[in-house]
């Protein structure tokens, strides 16, 4: 269980609190949420464009950009200017990143690489393709081992 102190809470003055508390207070209509500085149409457009242009992954302003976007837009969209555009921009960026991830996975498999390094991925993205990719690589590994000569054929013993 977490412990700590927060505040002081003075009306009209902004204060930093953990997201879970912010959402809770908002739901009880006791506060107004201030969106993070990256949750802004121009900034997100820049990120989206860079993502589309580069082959590598853009560093995201937060390792939890998807989760934060979802939480804030669900519970506090009235506090976020141009919320719908923001939602679309984040989704577009996500789609581009996932497409890149798949392209990367396919080329990794085709070239039978032993090792790959992908910077700037967030956990959310990794978890979406992770199980599939690790299973496929597992299969590939076993099929590759078949190529090794020198194992004498086993026959069943009774």
């Amino acid at each position, binding site marked *: 269980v977490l412990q700590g102190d927060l505040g002081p809470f003075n009306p009209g003055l902004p204060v930093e609190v953990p997201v879970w508390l912010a959402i809770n207070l908002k739901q009880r209509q006791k506060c107004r949420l201030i969106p993070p500085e990256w949750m802004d149409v121009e900034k997100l457009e820049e990120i989206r464009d860079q993502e589309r242009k580069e082959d590598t992954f853009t560093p995201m302003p937060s390792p939890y950009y998807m989760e934060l976007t979802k939480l804030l837009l669900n519970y506090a969209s009235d506090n976020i200017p141009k919320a719908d555009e923001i939602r679309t921009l984040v989704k577009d960026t996500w789609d581009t990143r996932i497409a890149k991830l798949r392209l990367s996975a396919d080329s990794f498999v085709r070239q039978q690489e032993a090792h790959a390094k992908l910077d700037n991925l967030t956990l959310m993205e990794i978890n979406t393709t992770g199980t*599939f990719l690790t299973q496929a690589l597992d299969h590939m590994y076993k*099929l590759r081992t078949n190529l090794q000569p020198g194992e004498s054929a086993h*026959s069943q013993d009774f």
Partner: protein
Amino acid sequence: MAEAYFPVAPGLGLEENFLSLDDILMSQEKLPGRAESALPRLAFALVQGAGTGDAIPEGSKLEIPLWLAKGLHDSKRRIISVELPKIYKEAWRTVFSADANVVDLHKMGPYYYGFGSQLLNFDNPENLDIAQTILQTFISRFRRIMDSSQNAYNEDTSALVARLDELERALFQAGQKGLNDFQCWEKGQASQITASSLVQNYGKRKFTDVDG
């Protein structure tokens, strides 16, 4: 989201996994072979319509399940000899290397990769080529499986999996699960408490009258 049952995966190499249902089913698939010597009184097992007590004459062509072929095969080949099934031979291997995506691997014996790996247990000069083809086939088909499994949400996927072999179908499931879990999170269902699939069936059984 949690699984109640974790199936044992197939061995997918030279060794089968003893407890894997996929491997058990796979090893029932047949390969063409020949009796190298007369096999007294075994015709009932391997020849259609034979009576008990009939022998298999030397030289007859047989279709032998893999598990039996592995057991009867030894390097002196006194009992049976085996041949490669068509799809692992050179003609089909060329088709696979041209475009592996068009092949219906489900029809070709639904355990293409597993069975192919097992064939490597028999001494055969083509083994290296077979192993290469199997690996390359997997690599070429990978992209399509990944894309289709991660894009088809809440649709009938039977057309997509129809031409996949069992190994690929399991992979497809893994991809679908990733997608479904993500969508579930997106819709906010991930934070809702739902009954576990393990207990959902508890109330549904009825007691039948016990005899005597």
